[in-house]
């Protein structure tokens, strides 16, 4: 998708090109629709039994939104591969840290509740 890649910085000649904004509004609507869907799910899937499924959907949708914000608005999708990986690899390690410590948190809670309450 090089159609909306940043044009070369040309010499300023005084004439102003027409705006090319269709892709911006497309991304906007994608973000709005995902957010609206999140609210719909927040209020329709209220059963405690569906909590894990619901949270999984939320996290997938969040990553999807992040993809559009970083990829399109921050233009990362249109950068060279090495820059994309430079940003993504450390972030992926961060995701692992979150997963690891969430698991650790459940364990800490379990241990504390077994030790301090009978």
């Amino acid at each position, binding site marked *: 998708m090089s159609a909306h890649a940043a044009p070369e910085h040309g010499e300023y000649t005084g004439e102003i090109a027409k705006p090319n904004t269709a892709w911006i509004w497309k991304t906007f609507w994608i973000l709005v629709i995902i957010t609206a869907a999140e*609210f719909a799910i927040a209020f329709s899937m209220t059963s405690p039994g569906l909590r894990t499924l619901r949270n999984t959907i939320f996290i997938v949708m969040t990553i999807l939104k992040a993809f559009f914000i970083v990829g399109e608005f921050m233009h990362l999708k249109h950068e060279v591969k090495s820059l994309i990986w*430079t940003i993504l690899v*450390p972030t992926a390690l961060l995701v692992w840290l979150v997963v690891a410590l969430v698991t650790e948190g459940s364990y800490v809670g379990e241990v504390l509740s077994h030790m301090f309450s009978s």
Partner: protein
Amino acid sequence: MAHSTTLQPNAASAAYVDAPRTGTWDGGNEPFKASYGKLMMWFFLLSDAFTFGAFLTAYGLIRHKHGVFTGQAKDFFFSTAHWPIPEKVFNAFPGLHGIDLPLAFVAFMTMILIFSSVTMVLAVEAGHRMDKADVQKWLLWTILFGSIFISSQAWEWTHFINGTEAGTRMADGTIFHGANLTMNQYGPPLFADLFFFITGFHGTHVFSGICLLVWCFIATTNGTFEKRGHYEMIEKIGLYWHFVDLVWVFVFTFFYLV
């Protein structure tokens, strides 16, 4: 003028008598095809992502350490024994006192921030076209939306701190309204601490962003970027602004939805 391989626009002027050296081992390479400033903004944002990542990691650990309310949502009550359900905490809207509107205000705030991101890209796009008037217009919209966002956050904090009329009976028998760093009516004390720190840190970022945008607007109006021949500064500030929006997407999911 196509991109030349040199990274130093005016390096040849004073210090160097010779033409700048542009060989591979003289720093003439640009492997990421991004300017120095943009690249450094990316690396700064990566380090900032670590900061927010640390917050979210701490949040995840502390939340999973606490008990979960296992009943139906309609039977939910505030207690330090379990983590609160967010839609029971954040259910107020300015001007609509006493009406239960779960997550309505945070939905409004989220929309405002998405809008501000769009107007920010529009400013960057206008900068590519050297359209000074459009850059000014979209920067002003972005500043406006950003300001609405932090004003909303100020209201949300005020409401959170003052609490509801009913309050919650604490362990010592007294009724406590609202929240501070050591006590709150909504649940475990750490819930309020994390709320203050995570949304506060994010709000600080939004505030810094607004300051940068105001500066950008003044520089645009003065013709600084036009004289420079490019509006790359708007792009760099834009990267920062989208990052703040991105952080909100995660805060929104993990603090308000999950």
